[in-house]
């Protein structure tokens, strides 16, 4: 494995600046979340808050172990608990660490209108650069996993950075380091995929026939992947989407209609210009004035005050 640091970028939101390409030694990274090893202890959540200096408000117990209740600008990763009764009638406590999936084809970045507010580094990390964020919320609509959250305080969008600051100096993300049971692993995407394969063999030997890797092709794969006991039913893990991809609505909005709309606007303007050139202005003629005067007279149109203050004869 070569260097995994977040040095170069391969995509920047809303800009056409060419990404640098001379350095080609960067490998793509991945975080592998092995749900089957996870005990739901929330160490990842705590480590994330501690490292990233995030402190939410202290909430309330709301009839679930999910605390806080949802991702928010101060909660970039969240354990979601599901009590699931399997086909055999046995209880399984499915616990999934939710957070940014770092899509290879990031919908947030595609949707973002602010230049440089979302970048994708060469190692695959999709990062929000808060200084450039305008707070429009388009990333929220662009994301197929419902991850980014807009702060009501500073109107910036926030989500997991995959600890790009740690990765940049050669460290693993804070959640990965903390995870007590090794349910979160970090390395090159190639290595993580390989390791997931070994885990799946073990799980199948323990009776989980549908164990598998969640690396959805709809977004060209992700840099955060899951090992699931029931990969055939990802939705039982607190609604992990079966076939995530950037919404067709968003693709259309950020794709085809942009050039078509600009073309349409331009066409309208050009048509006007051409009409001007060809037909020219529509100007009132003296005959028109005369005809109008005749009508007015015929109707015995009253004199008005205005008429007494004539300063200019209409043409």
């Amino acid at each position, binding site marked *: 494995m070569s260097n995994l640091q977040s040095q170069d970028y391969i995509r920047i939101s809303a800009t056409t600046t060419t990404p640098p390409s001379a350095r080609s030694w960067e490998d793509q990274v991945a975080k592998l979340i092995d749900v089957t090893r996870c005990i739901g202890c929330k160490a990842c959540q705590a480590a994330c808050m501690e490292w990233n200096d995030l402190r939410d408000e202290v909430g309330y117990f709301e009839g679930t172990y999910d*605390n806080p209740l949802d991702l928010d600008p101060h909660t970039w990763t969240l354990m979601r608990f599901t009590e699931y009764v399997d086909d055999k009638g046995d209880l399984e406590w499915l616990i999934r660490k939710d957070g940014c999936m770092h899509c290879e084809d990031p919908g947030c970045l595609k949707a973002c209108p602010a230049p440089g507010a979302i970048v994708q580094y060469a190692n695959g990390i999709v990062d929000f650069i808060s200084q450039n964020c305008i707070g429009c919320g388009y990333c929220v609509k662009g994301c197929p996993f419902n991850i980014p959250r807009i702060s009501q305080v500073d109107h910036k969008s926030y989500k997991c950075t995959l600890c790009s600051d740690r990765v940049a100096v050669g460290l693993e993300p804070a959640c990965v380091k903390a995870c007590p049971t090794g349910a979160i692993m970090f390395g090159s995407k190639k290595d993580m995929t390989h390791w997931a394969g070994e885990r799946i063999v073990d799980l199948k030997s323990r009776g989980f026939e549908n164990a598998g890797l969640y690396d959805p092709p709809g977004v060209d794969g992700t840099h955060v992947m899951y090992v699931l006991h029931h990969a055939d039913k990802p939705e039982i893990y607190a609604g992990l989407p079966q076939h995530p991809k950037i919404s067709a609505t968003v693709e259309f909005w950020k794709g085809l209609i942009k050039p078509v709309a600009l073309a349409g606007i331009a066409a309208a303007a050009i048509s006007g210009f051409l009409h001007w050139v060809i037909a020219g202005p529509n100007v009132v003629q003296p005959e028109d004035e005369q005809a109008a005067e005749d009508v007015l007279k015929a109707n015995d149109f009253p004199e008005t005050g205005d008429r007494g203050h004539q300063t200019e004869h209409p043409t």
Partner: protein
Amino acid sequence: MASLAPTFGRGAMTNTWQDIKNADVVVVMGGNAAEAHPCGFKWVVEAKIENGAKLIVVDPRFTRTASVADYYVPIRPGTDIAFLLGLIRYLLEKDQIQHEYVRAYSNAGLIVQEGYGFEDGLFSGYDHEKGDYDKSSWTYELDEQGFAKADDTWQHPRCVMNLLKTHVARYTPEMVSRICGTPQDKYLHVCEMIAATAAPDKAMTSLFALGWTQHSVGSQNIRTMAMVQLLLGNIGVAGGGMNALRGHSNIQGLTDVGLLSNLIPGYLTLPNDQEKTFDDYMKTRQFKPLRPGQMSYWSNYRKFFVSFQKSIYGDAATAENNWNYDWLPKLDIPLYDIIKAFEMMNKGEMNGYICQGFNPQQAFPDRGKIRRGLSKLKFLVTMDPLDTETSRFWENFGPQNPADSANIQTEVFQLPTTCFAEENGSLVNSARWLQWHWKAAEPPGIAKSDIWIMSGIFHRMRELYRKEGGAFPDPILNLTWNYTNPTDPNPEELAKDMNGRARVDLKDASSAVSKKAGELLDGFAQLRDDGTTESGCWIFSGCYTEKGNQMARRDATDPREQGIAPNWAWAWPANRRILYNRASADVAGNPWNPAKPLIQWNGTKWVGIDVPDYGPTVKPSDGVGPFIMNAEGVGRLFALDQMVEGPFPEHYEPLESPTINALHPKVQSNPAVRVFPDDRADFGSPAEFPYVATTYRLTEHFHFWTKHARINSILQPQEFIEIGEALANEKGIAQGSWVRVASKRGFIVCKAYVTKRITPLMVDGKATHVIGVPLHWGFTGQARKGYGANTLTPSVGDANTQTPEYKAFLVNIESVNGPLV
């Protein structure tokens, strides 16, 4: 651990945390390792992944540990002994025991004397008046030399093996299921999985914690599994053991250093009133071997004791004054434990109490009684980094602490202390490792270390006694205090005190000087009983030697990656990482499991990756047993007189139980348990309180500390209880709604978590509901204000250790509209 010592000789976790990865089967029962010890639990996950291990979880609730288990079975709180004795019956009936191991390394073949018996729930010698046993019949039949008689063929009707068979015969699968509520097929499946580790090269580890200790039969819970492990040959081997997962960072250390009512550092014990003289005292402690040729290491007791007295009293302790034996306080009762202390407070028998880093207002049973007790004190001193409930017990916080300040005459001192980040020192972890840590920052404000504060109190007391005289000032005036800075001794000096040093030039057998006067000792083998050595805690001897601070070692090298890391920090005793590791090899000294040997005999000495828990050159043919602390050299299936309620475990119902004891209705609960009359009056009946409650930790919190930390308060913000869907439906309790949970002693009003993870159990044909009560909340800190689980718990303890019965008691529950204001 007053259950492992009677069985194996020492009361501590036998193996290391990392060694768990060598297990073939991991049983988590009487604990919830994933929840309470996530970072230790990683080695269970490693065992599963790297060793193909199977994880079995037996728990009233489907816990976080269960969420990654291969097999989970439910059990009614407080019935573990029935489950495990049934397991022993299964193992004996199916002959799934490791024969050679049991024959050589347990007391299965020793013969018990004739007077011993068991009938209708009581062992021989019970005194109904006193509620106590005369334990004289619980012993071996001795021969002329004072050695126990043995029958290695197990033919003798009174050999331990046969007594055991008879004892467990009643625990049929039907009976187990009837008592525990565990479905029979699931129970038998667990038996089958566990029995597989009887093979010599297979190991099972038992991970347990307060889920076993916090019962009126807590010690016997553990002992029963210890017996299972002996029968399966799983003690002393890699991946085996009885792994008592201690709760607090230095609770092992505090126990090692003897900060309990009856202890002297190093598991020496204080004298009692009957031991009038030093000789009386020594008689019951210097255990002579009960079998020929055994080490019976406690026969060195005198060396440890004298060296200890020299350490704390120096020149004032002499042979002539019996090393100041009389300066030690004597006990008139077995223990002045916490339950007794608060009983005394409530009766007005106590005036002062010092709580050092301890929060009894939340942590002790029956919070109401605790508050009433503290209110009767003249003074209370708290030393804590945090603003504890105890230090504010007198302040009215509404229903969570309805104190009447004006009527509480207690003077309270709230002293701010340093925390871990602000001091040097060592902590002993569960696996007995003494690990040094370094100060990183200054404490906030003018907070001071506990060392500074205790020294301050001591110096002022000593000064007052010097000036004014008073009651028996001698021990105070003569306490050794040779520290560079007497007002703030540095931890390194204290560590050296515990390690011990030579007081004169020590000479070895050849009369050469082996240690110069004043030099630090290399280990407890150098201790002497003539006053020429001193050591503050003999089991720690070797932790700080002339070679430096061994506890600060940071070489993580792990030979064969077998989870020993012998050069990381230092472990007591003598840096042994796996206790009883002699038992990892067969009688001839060859490892049971050649793939994972710990030590083995190479013809001249014991070699391997661990320090032998054995004489390093003792030949296998000498027949010395692997349990060197025990007078018989073997592990005890029959515990002699070491346990107060019997040499074998027996199922007794919790003091508050929803059912009658199916085995012996006349002896419902532990007959040797101590209950104060006022506490007994506060026990509830199943008619009034029909549901079984159990209290526990959540992984997001640590006791009542982390509610002071913002992040942890975010992760679990508010007090709640857990109930199954069936009970919730019956009671009309909606998810996340408010409920009132009451016991005879008090009530809490909090949110309800309705879960599939708790299901009703069929106990004696009746559906029994369990209510889970997480314990972390209180009225100070960052989290939402709560009552605390111990508002509900009963003030009764384990008969041996007086550990409160937090894990099984009775409550009622009802839906309410909202919190009390």
